[in-house]
């Protein structure tokens, strides 16, 4: 199957407030896709629809070819789900939660789970409610690893984690995903975490998907050009060349998928005089802000 996940023409509203309309995206089997978007663009809404916890007003998502609203038990057992904030059954201890989940998954592998717990020096009898957020994240990760799903859906996995645990989580996930050929779908509000992890990216704006592409294509082709406006402030509208434009007094930043030559020709064509034209290297976070805007 080429795509583990396919979402087609999703439209959702909360009351009269539109979240998005006609949003579509796909996740290739065996790839790691990051869903990026500002607060309120509908990342968690999308994850809820994907897990069947929310019925969209229109459109549908398919997981391994099954409509996400009516997933069979077999398909659900192939999907690991990390809830935002690493929520688990807090009233259970390490042993109890492993025992509980293991009953539901025939291919359950408890060794990776207990291995992770040993590394963290967590005892079997420790209750999850007494753990730090970082420890809880590792319990949730350990359980997903034990489930050994084909698709992992991770909603804002970096929430509440300190840099050490975030790094641990990302490295573990990247290594595991590649080694085991897993499909992983992640969202995170800390975009720099995803830079080392994801193969493909979907960027959401307030009107739906702004971009879906491979990370390589996005990072190699999306560019920031800084220049000074010689004849005072000018504002540029978005079009085929200008993906985004930002200006502070005479200092302009133009974001585009076009080459430096094409952008300079475009500016000349618009009779905009400029100087000190430079291409600025970007991190994923810079590129994200560049494509979505600061506001």
């Amino acid at each position, binding site marked *: 199957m080429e795509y583990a996940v396919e979402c087609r023409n999703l439209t959702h509203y*909360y*009351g009269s407030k539109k979240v998005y309309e006609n949003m579509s995206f796909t996740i290739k089997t065996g790839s790691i896709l990051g869903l990026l978007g500002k607060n309120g663009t509908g990342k968690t809404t999308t994850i*809820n629809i994907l*897990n*069947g*916890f*929310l*019925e969209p007003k229109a459109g549908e998502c398919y997981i391994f070819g099954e409509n996400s609203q009516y997933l069979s*038990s*077999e398909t*659900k*057992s192939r*999907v690991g*789900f990390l*809830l935002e*904030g690493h*929520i*688990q*059954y*807090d*009233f*259970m201890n390490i042993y*109890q939660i492993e*025992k*509980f989940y293991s*009953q*539901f*998954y025939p291919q359950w592998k408890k060794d990776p789970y207990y291995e992770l717990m040993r590394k963290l020096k967590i005892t079997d009898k420790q209750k999850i409610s007494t753990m730090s957020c970082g420890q809880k994240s590792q319990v949730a990760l350990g359980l997903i690893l034990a489930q050994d799903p084909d698709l992992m859906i991770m909603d804002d996995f970096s929430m509440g984690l300190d840099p050490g645990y975030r790094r641990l989580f990302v490295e573990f996930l990247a290594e595991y995903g590649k080694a085991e050929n897993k499909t992983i779908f992640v969202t995170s509000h800390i975009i720099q975490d995803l830079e080392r992890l994801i193969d493909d990216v979907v960027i959401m704006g307030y009107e739906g998907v702004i971009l879906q592409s491979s990370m390589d294509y996005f990072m190699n082709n999306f560019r920031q050009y800084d220049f000074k406006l010689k004849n005072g402030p000018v504002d540029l509208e978005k079009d085929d060349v200008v993906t985004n434009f930002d200006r502070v007094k005479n200092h302009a930043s133009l974001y585009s998928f076009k080459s430096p030559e094409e952008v300079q020709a475009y500016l000349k064509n618009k009779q905009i005089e400029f100087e000190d034209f430079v291409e600025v290297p970007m991190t994923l976070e810079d590129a994200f802000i560049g494509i979505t805007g600061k506001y």
Partner: protein
Amino acid sequence: MIKKIFYKEWLKIRWAYLAIAVLFAAVMIYIFASVAHTYKFNLAATYWYNIIFRGISFYSSLRYVPLFSGLLLAAVQFIPEIQKKRIKLTFHLPVNEYNVLLVMAGIGFLSLVVMFGVYCLIFLLLGYAFFPAEIVHSAVLTTFPWYLLGLTAYSLASYIILEPMWKRRIFYILFAVGFGNLFLYGWFYNIYDRVLIGMLIVTILLSISVIYSGHRFKKGVYK
């Protein structure tokens, strides 16, 4: 599936269940210690006369215990599920979501039935030690709606806790309080005899109500 879900539910309810058992035991001890005490200072015939003709109840302390039990069990079982929307984990298990809800509600409901049944039996046996069978049977029939109220309270509380919208919750709470009062209308002997079957049917029907609020939660009706 029942065994698998039972494990989780039991971890949630075990201490509350034990507390309910202790509470029932304490109330039973109190009731029959009071009866024994009354016997010590009154003639049995006078006591029976007061019970039969003046409607004096020797078991009124039991009245709210099943209600409290039902509410407590629903709270310990379902509040952890809605905190931080943890029920998504339950819905994500590789089993049918509605079957899971039914099993969860069934476990709580039957746990209460067992508890109420055991203490009803204890009440019956201890009653025989002090009163003629007619008085004891009549007392059991009179307390029966209280047990049904306990079960109804469990079902309605579970339903309300799982309901995703506060506005609806408040409406349901008002309805539940009014409805619950029907079960506590009075404690005069055999006052409910003619409607007991109806009450029993309503109680059983309400036991599956949790499906509806669970369905609303699953469909994402929480904004």
